[in-house]
């Protein structure tokens, strides 16, 4: 159905599992493969560009028999999330995918899923919000869902998409977390670009990801009412427990990544992925595909004698406060945001400064770049870094629109 070949890709490491298939495909078809191999019992989804090939991919696996769950083609994203909530509350593994306006339509139910403590896993293909209509990438869709209680990953390659989806089920379903996970990746740059991806054997995935055992579920043998009226004092405890669970996730994400590395030989970082940070006096922070492009920029800048490294932020929630503080004690920080909290500044920029507040004297430079899907090349990233290192950058600049 899709291009597949036996062999080893450049990702292939020294894991315990040597039997891999290399699948050369787009981010969305890779995500469909990962979701299918995680054996969700229910997928409920609604199409939106550029997520469509993800749901089409799953539909193909329904036809081929590889996907054995229930596939509900709902009439809106709001219903997609509502159906996932119903299914997850009944005690089964659930998956969905969306993008941009679809994610925004889900907003109410994103809160609901998190407050109901349901381990739903969802891919969000980062796409611009209209008007005007624009199907290219930026992160304003998922950044605006920051406070829903979902864990948020940002991927920088198709291999990372595959690995993060499988790992996310394990993370979400862990009783110490019991929260939904959103896996974000850039529209077209990843969703529609083919790359070689190592696909482990199904048995190895099954060993890594055992069947979901819910703590509670809708059960006629044990009738309980979920989500009825709750008084202020009790509700506050629910919120605190969610916060504790996000903190627990900070410990579990590295543990799961380590287990994955041991089994499959691949590692994409923990809450952040560090690259060339040894001896760095400046550290660049970015998310998603810009994070991958930044590696090239860092290599070039190092060649030119700049003492600079890269820390790619993989999880926006939980936010890697502790890791960023460590970086802030090492050097000055440069943040590229492919999002804007209008009236304030880039979202990662704000949070980085908050993480350092009162504990580090590091300078922090914020740059907004790549909104509306505007290309951000390694040349652009080098220019941004050089401006920051020169000390001439303002607090927060819009790359290409002013200054720089």
């Amino acid at each position: 159905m899709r291009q597949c070949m036996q062999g080893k890709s450049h990702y292939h490491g020294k894991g315990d599992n040597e039997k891999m298939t290399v699948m050369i495909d787009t981010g969305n078809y890779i995500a469909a493969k990962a979701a299918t191999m995680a054996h969700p019992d229910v997928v409920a989804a609604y199409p939106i560009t550029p997520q469509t090939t993800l749901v089409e991919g799953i539909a193909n696996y329904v036809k081929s028999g590889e996907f054995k769950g229930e596939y509900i083609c709902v009439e809106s994203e709001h219903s997609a999330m509502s159906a996932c909530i119903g299914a997850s509350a009944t005690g089964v593994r659930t998956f969905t995918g969306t993008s941009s306006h679809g994610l925004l339509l889900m907003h109410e139910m994103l809160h609901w899923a998190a407050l109901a403590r349901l381990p739903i896993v969802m891919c969000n293909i980062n796409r611009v919000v209209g008007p005007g209509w624009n199907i290219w990438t930026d992160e304003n869709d998922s950044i605006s869902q920051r406070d829903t209680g979902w864990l948020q990953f940002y991927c920088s390659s198709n291999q990372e998409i595959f690995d993060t989806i499988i790992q996310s089920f394990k993370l979400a379903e862990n009783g110490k977390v019991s929260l939904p996970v959103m896996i974000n990746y850039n529209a077209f740059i990843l969703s529609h670009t083919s790359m070689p991806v190592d696909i482990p054997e199904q048995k190895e995935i099954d060993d890594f990801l055992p069947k979901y055992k819910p703590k509670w579920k809708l059960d006629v043998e044990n009738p309980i009412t979920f989500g009825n009226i709750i008084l202020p004092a009790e509700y506050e405890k629910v919120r605190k427990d969610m916060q504790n669970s996000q903190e627990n996730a900070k410990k579990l994400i590295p543990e799961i990544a380590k287990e994955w590395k041991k089994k499959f030989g691949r590692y994409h970082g923990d809450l952040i992925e560090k690259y060339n940070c040894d001896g760095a006096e400046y550290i660049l922070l970015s998310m998603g595909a810009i994070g991958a492009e930044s590696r090239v920029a860092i290599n070039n800048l190092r060649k030119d004698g700049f003492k600079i490294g890269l820390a790619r932020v993989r999880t926006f929630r939980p936010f890697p406060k502790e890791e960023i503080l460590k970086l802030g004690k090492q050097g000055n920080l440069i943040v590229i945001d492919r999002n804007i909290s209008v009236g304030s500044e880039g979202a990662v920029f704000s949070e980085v400064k908050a993480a350092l507040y009162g504990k580090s004297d590091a300078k922090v430079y914020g740059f907004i770049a790549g909104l509306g899907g505007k290309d951000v090349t390694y040349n652009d990233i080098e220019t941004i870094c050089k401006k920051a290192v020169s000390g001439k950058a303002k607090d927060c600049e819009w790359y290409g629109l002013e200054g720089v």
Partner: protein
Amino acid sequence: MAIKDLPDTECVMPGSAACPGCPATIALRTTFKALGKNTIMVVPACCTSVIEGLHPNTSFDVPVMNIAFEAAAAGASGVKAALKQQGKDDITVLAWAGDGGTYDIGIQALSGALERQTDFIYICYNNQIYSNTGIQRSGATPYGAWTTTTVGGKTEFRKEMGEIIQAHHIPYAAQACVSYPEDLYNKVKKAKSIKGPKYIEIIAPCPPGWRFGMEKTVEMGTLAVETGAWALYEYENDVVTFNGKSKLLLEKKIEPKPIEDWIKLQGRFRHLFKPKRDVKRLKEIQEHTDMVWERYRKHHL
């Protein structure tokens, strides 16, 4: 079957947070006598989400999932899909929503679930207002009725939800009334026995919302049927069959009581009688009711 012959099953336990004279609790008790305890219930925002009681207590003896206002039918789709995967297809999934959650904000999710042939029962208990939020206008509010958002009386006639449901050509739909529990019981029982999407709507006269005494709930339902403000029928295999007094009205074997007999007892229509009789609007309401029954006769006789 007489009321005394209904099963002893009770899924609504004493101590609920319902108002005195609440029609929803009558409808719930009767519904669960037909469905039994092998049922999972999905409840959007509506009076029932209050009737359940305060966390960590509940007045329901079946598993209940509360869900957002517009999401009952979609949430129920997910529950049913999960049950299928668990090999528990025998469990009945009941979405239980008010008229606001059905006629207005929830109509999209409901239409989607019906079109997808979701195997569940959707029950709308219709008290013709947003009552949980304090008596605001809904798409089910009748013409002329006062609500807190239609202070001089509603200026539009209500939606015909039954006809919208029939356009989905589902295996079973019915209209019932809290005042006829045996009829409601039989309709729910039949819905339970049929695979696929089923829709039942129950007219539910609300004492504080309609402005009548709490002891008159049953009388207000009976009069709704006898005046033709509400019809009892079943829809099966694309055929609508009227039953009870509604059948006699359809066949003109009895005369409907004047609509005024029903509305004059409700404070929400008081402005049509005081300070002086609003002849024009009273005439419009009667004519509209007659027109609806002429349409029923044209299509279903």
